[in-house]
């Protein structure tokens, strides 16, 4: 019998620090004033879910966008633990802001590459002056093969050295062609990070040759688009190997921190449902006094409490660069995405007819939860990763 050998469990800090609680309070109070459910619904119906004012305050005043960016690049020099707290609050509000694209994966990709262009862009992102979206499908998962890259079709308008001799190093502007589907938050982004066959490129979203075709997305709060490049100019940020490694790291962070968004979302659903069942009367009793409903909510509470431990473990493992971070992230994703969907589904069901209406915000959470369960890898994909890391191979 082979020796069981899952990677050893590092000591994790699963609590919240005082500074993290202060950050939470600041984000929550901002969202309460600028991003209540009615405001989110109104923005969605207006066809422009992103709220640039909210983003500026969140990014610039609170400094949330630059948590992962080192201080010397104008960021907070904080860690995934703090970013996770922000995402819990954004999930609780189903806030339509590009945090999970611009402030996490895009930022991580740039941090994984070198060079002055990356540093400049990170400064802009950290300050909230610009928003950046990785031009990758939202469903792209850690450990999954990257999609076929966009093609490098020649030297760009500014000339530059280009990848001289075909596919070497060098900086400068190149023209790019190709298309990527299901890109989250592309419409609201100023810069797209594009993986081409010759490396990673920053493409100005409003430059000639770039089209962003909005898709009708299940999740109204995280808009999707197809990004098509037709001879669009891109500034080269990294060679293909560096780009792929940076993207792999960014997908891991994104998946790990998505668990915190899912936790916040599930917490909102549970709290709203409990509040509803305490006050709503049927059969001359509060609904919450019926044992069948109490048991459902108690089980859901236990799921949410467990999801908190899993999400916190992922954030802490990413923050400390723990050797078993990929396993901890896979565990968090395999667990939390199901809890978020269950919480949103229970929220709709236990609100009865109210839960099926457009006016009640439960549907925003259900749609976000279901889309989140596909984002950055399904639970099944992450269980497959667990099988690899924990050495529990398939038959």
């Amino acid at each position: 019998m082979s020796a069981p050998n899952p990677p050893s469990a590092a000591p994790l800090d699963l609590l919240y620090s005082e500074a993290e609680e202060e950050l939470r309070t600041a984000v929550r109070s901002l969202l309460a004033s600028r991003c209540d459910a009615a405001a989110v619904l109104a923005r969605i119906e207006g066809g422009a879910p992103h709220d640039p004012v909210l983003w500026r305050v969140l990014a610039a005043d609170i400094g949330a966008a630059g948590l992962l960016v080192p201080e010397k690049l104008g960021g907070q020099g904080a860690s995934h633990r703090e970013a996770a707290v922000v995402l819990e609050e954004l999930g609780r509000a189903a806030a339509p802001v590009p945090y999970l694209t611009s402030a996490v994966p895009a930022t991580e990709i740039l941090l994984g590459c070198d060079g002055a262009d990356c540093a400049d862009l990170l400064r802009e992102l950290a300050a909230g002056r610009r928003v950046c979206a990785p031009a990758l499908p939202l469903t792209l998962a850690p450990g999954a093969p990257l999609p076929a890259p966009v093609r490098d079709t020649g030297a760009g308008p500014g000339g530059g050295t280009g990848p001289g001799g075909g596919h070497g190093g060098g900086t400068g502007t190149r023209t790019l062609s190709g298309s990527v589907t299901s890109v989250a938050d592309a419409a609201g982004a100023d810069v797209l990070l594009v993986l081409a066959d010759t490396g990673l490129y920053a493409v100005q979203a409003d430059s000639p040759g770039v089209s962003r075709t909005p898709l009708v997305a299940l999740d109204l709060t995280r808009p999707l688009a197809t990004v098509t490049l037709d001879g669009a100019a891109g500034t080269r940020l990294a060679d293909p190997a560096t780009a792929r490694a940076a993207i792999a790291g960014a997908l891991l962070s994104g998946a790990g921190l998505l668990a915190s968004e899912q936790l916040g979302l599930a917490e909102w659903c549970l709290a709203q449902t409990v509040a509803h069942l305490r006050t709503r009367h049927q059969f001359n009793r509060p609904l919450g006094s019926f044992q069948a409903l109490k048991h459902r909510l108690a089980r859901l509470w236990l799921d949410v409490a467990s999801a908190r431990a899993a999400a916190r473990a992922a954030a802490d493992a990413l923050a400390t660069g723990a050797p078993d971070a990929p396993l901890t992230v896979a565990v968090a994703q395999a667990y939390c995405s199901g809890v978020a969907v269950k919480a949103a589904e229970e929220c709709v069901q236990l609100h009865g007819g109210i839960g099926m209406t457009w006016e009640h915000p439960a549907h925003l959470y259900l749609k976000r939860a279901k889309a989140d369960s596909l984002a950055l890898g399904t639970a099944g994909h992450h269980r497959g990763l667990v099988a690899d890391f924990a050495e529990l191979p398939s038959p």
Partner: protein
Amino acid sequence: MTAAAVTAAQLLLRTRELLAAHPPATTAREDFLRARFDAGLAWVHYPEGLGGLGAPRTLQAVVDAELEAAAAPDNDPRRIGIGLGMAAPTILAYGTEEQKRRFLRPLWIGEEVWCQLFSEPGAGSDLAALGTRAVRAADGDGDWVVDGQKVWTSSAHTARWAILIARTDPALPKHQGITYFLCDMHAPGVEVRPLRQITGEAEFNEVFLTGVKIPDAHRLGEVGQGWAVARTTLMNERVSIGGMRIPREGGMIAPVAAAWRGRPELRTHSLHQRLLELWVEAEVARLTGERLRQQLAAGAPGPEGSGMKLAFARLNQEISGLEVELLGEEGLLYEDWTLRRPEIVDFTGRDAGYRYLRAKGNSIEGGTSEILLNIVAERVLGLPAEPRDDKDLAWKDLAR
């Protein structure tokens, strides 16, 4: 040494003095334990003279680590768990000085094992409905005579003493007419019968009480106040979880994962999916327990403790069920149906069939999962209690 003065450094010094005066290698086990108790290092948060020093409870870890490093004998907490976890804190909270001095020392040393005479055939989850009667004896000394039947009593066959709740006034509503006693298991009229379970072994007992005399000096708390005393016992029953660290892939998932790795011929795709789901859930339950432990250490206990028993009961049942299936033909077999009387439950030392059957008790013992879900719903989530009509009725008028 006063409470305010007790520090970790002082406890460490005191522990080393104990070890120097009574070297574990050359001291008899019970002599060492007696000396440890008398040095106030048994449970440091208990008062001086009762095995403690009035120190913060968290400092016990300092003592335990030092003693463990010196390979000092322990008092076998698993064997005397009911006494340590339930009888002792209740005696400390409600006992007279005389009762504390009489009972706590032999309890902690393990010279006297305790059991708990609470549950009855007609009063399990609805514990306050109990019908065991205690009436004043005719001799006029104020002593009591107890008649009734208890069930699910762990350790009754090894116990010297029992904590007992009995009804002293059937005319009062069910929570009011109860009194709490310390019962001598060697007294005439106490009969212990093994209760054979679905595993084939008799880990528990039925206890029949027929005209058992209990002196009034062994009453704990006031007459009729037994329910309040019992609540102290029950709260302590649920406190113990969360204190221990489990390694990744510890507990029930370990033997299944080992079988999966070691025996590729047993693997199927459908079992693989279930195994991975349960492996993830076991890891998340481990992390939730770890988070609870960190909250306790930080002095901010979260409500997670209320849920941990629910989580482990479900997981243990599902994992052990999967294990039996995974084993194929071997899963059709059972190690041994011979009646045994184990002193402790040993999940890992037995086969998969035993684990599967024994885990069925995890959602029943110590509060059924249904009762615990009510507790979470009402005390953690603040949902209203179900309407009930038994609170103001005399016990004797309740339907049975």
